């Protein structure tokens, strides 16, 4: 009896919490999407009329479209590289015995706690000394640094959970370490890898504060473009461009899912 009651109370409160969580997470984005279809001139809710007008404008706006492309390919590059670097490091920390692990984890985690403005200016100074400011490297490396903590945390948590018995068994059967990693470790931590890749993508795709210092001439990322656009004008164009960002993220998530193995994850 008592078991039943507690179970039911938990199920009910769980459902309520989930309802609140999903509403809370989706609502701001949904409002923006809804507003992007307005036919009016100003961004307000409820929107006036329905039209694709602002999407046409966005499509014709060279600045936004170039920025969208820049953001996307930087984010894809960053997530690929971050995943490789992060997995290697997390694997080393989790599977080998050596001193200073705590320090390494703190190192990997540190980009998060350094205020973005500080990192942005610091990187700008560094790249200016290296005479690389007017290239793509500052954005790429800056975002990579930002993505590392997310990737490391997620992969480390996954690695520390999954059972090593399988790996050891395979090793005892004289499977090469690479094969063990490919056949056993990677498949086992796939969900972790997927979240890591998505974290990395999203970190790079959405970043404004560090990017603002690292963009140059032809390579302005979309969030920076939006940020400056919004500084002087706020029209539904911004909502339309933001909705496009959502669509791109969806596509990327689905692609990552396909690549890593459909059905297994997410």
């Amino acid at each position, binding site marked *: 009896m008592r078991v039943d009651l507690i179970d039911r109370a938990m199920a009910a409160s769980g459902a309520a919490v989930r309802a609140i969580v999903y509403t809370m997470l989706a609502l701001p984005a949904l409002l923006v999407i809804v507003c992007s279809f307005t036919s009016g001139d100003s961004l307000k809710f409820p929107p006036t009329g329905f039209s694709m007008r602002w999407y046409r404008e966005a499509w014709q706006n060279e600045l936004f479209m170039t920025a969208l492309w820049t953001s996307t390919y930087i984010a894809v590059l960053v997530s690929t590289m971050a995943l490789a670097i992060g997995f290697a490091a997390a694997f080393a920390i989790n599977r080998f015995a050596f001193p200073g692990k705590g320090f390494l984890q703190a190192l990997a985690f540190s980009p998060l706690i350094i205020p973005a403005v500080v990192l942005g200016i610091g990187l700008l100074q560094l790249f200016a000394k290296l005479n690389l400011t007017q290239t793509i490297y500052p954005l790429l490396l800056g975002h990579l640094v930002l993505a590392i903590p997310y990737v490391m945390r997620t992969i480390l948590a996954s690695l520390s959970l999954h059972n090593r018995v399988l790996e050891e068994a395979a090793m005892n059967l004289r499977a090469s370490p690479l094969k063990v990693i490919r056949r056993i470790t990677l498949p086992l931590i796939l969900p972790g890898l997927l979240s890591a890749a998505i974290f990395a993508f999203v970190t790079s795709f959405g970043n404004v504060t560090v990017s*603002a210092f690292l*963009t140059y001439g032809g390579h302005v990322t979309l969030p920076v473009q939006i940020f400056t656009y919004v500084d002087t004008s706020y029209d539904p164009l911004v909502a339309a461009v933001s909705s496009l960002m959502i669509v791109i993220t969806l596509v990327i998530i689905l692609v990552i899912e396909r690549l890593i193995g459909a059905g297994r994850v997410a």
Partner: protein
Amino acid sequence: MIKRRTFLKVAATATAGALAAPYVHAESKKFSGITLRVNGYGGLYDEALKKSVAAPLEERYGLKIQFIAGTTSADFVKLIANRDNPPYDLFMGDSPNMVELTKAGMIEEIRASEVPNVKRILPDFREFGHYGVPFSVASIIPVYNSKYIKQPIASYSDIARPDLVGRAVVMASATYGSLLTLLGLADENGGSIENVEPAFKVMSAAKRNIVALAQTNVAEIQMFQNEEVYAGIFWDGRAHELRTKGLPIVTVVPPKGVYSVTTYINVVKGIKYPEAAYAYAEQLLSDEGVLGVPRALRYGVTTDVTLPEELRQDLLFNSQARIALKKKVDWEKLIANRSAWTEELNKIIRS
């Protein structure tokens, strides 16, 4: 609609140019093949400059202008960090930025020999000697929504009026909108740039009124639009923008004087094509160029240009008498005091 038309026009010009260029214009366009990079202010501001300055230059000289989006402070930091390889050829900045720019020694002096239209600049609108070419002026003034505020606001200090409880807004503490507000308040209450204590007194009294400090112009626009606030201190061009959105916003001209910032274009030192950059400045100060920003955003002009009637009605500085109200600001001193004032204001406002 305007933007789309501009886009089509630019696209058409560009296509026509691309087709025609190899045959006819190759020699006659003296700056063809050159692209100048300007730090953009973003949005409609850049659109206005593209239409009134960049498009004519391209048509006439084949000169291309690239507006690079960024915030002025981040752009400035980029400029300073890349002294030897400047990321911009032309740098736009407001009066307070000019202090830093001249101090950093990164910009050229500009004289009438290089840019003849400099002679057309109104007296007192060029605040930094031969540095910088002023092309637009924005004023910070009291504004209110007449639908809710029946007793007109008359001065900066009215922001502390008891009937505005929970209904007022001023610009965020570190912005120069807020620094100028402090100067206006000090001025009206027996203080000065040397002594802003009276301004802080007014701010303390206004604390109950002030719902929030607006971090950006757009944030303040939204607060007015959503009727979170009925009164505030804001830029003149933005008040006009609110009116175009259908709000009954009244612009107040403070009788004791108006505080404004001037926007300058600068030619960065050590760039490849200074001649092309001077041509930009010249076009910016021409009738066509200088009216670009006012036409789009209703900020004031800096030259002796004759204002078209519809602009004359909307602009704040539309007569000799009005221009006489424009207060001179010691920008150097303002910058020196910025940190202390910001800190003080933050302490007052924090609840």
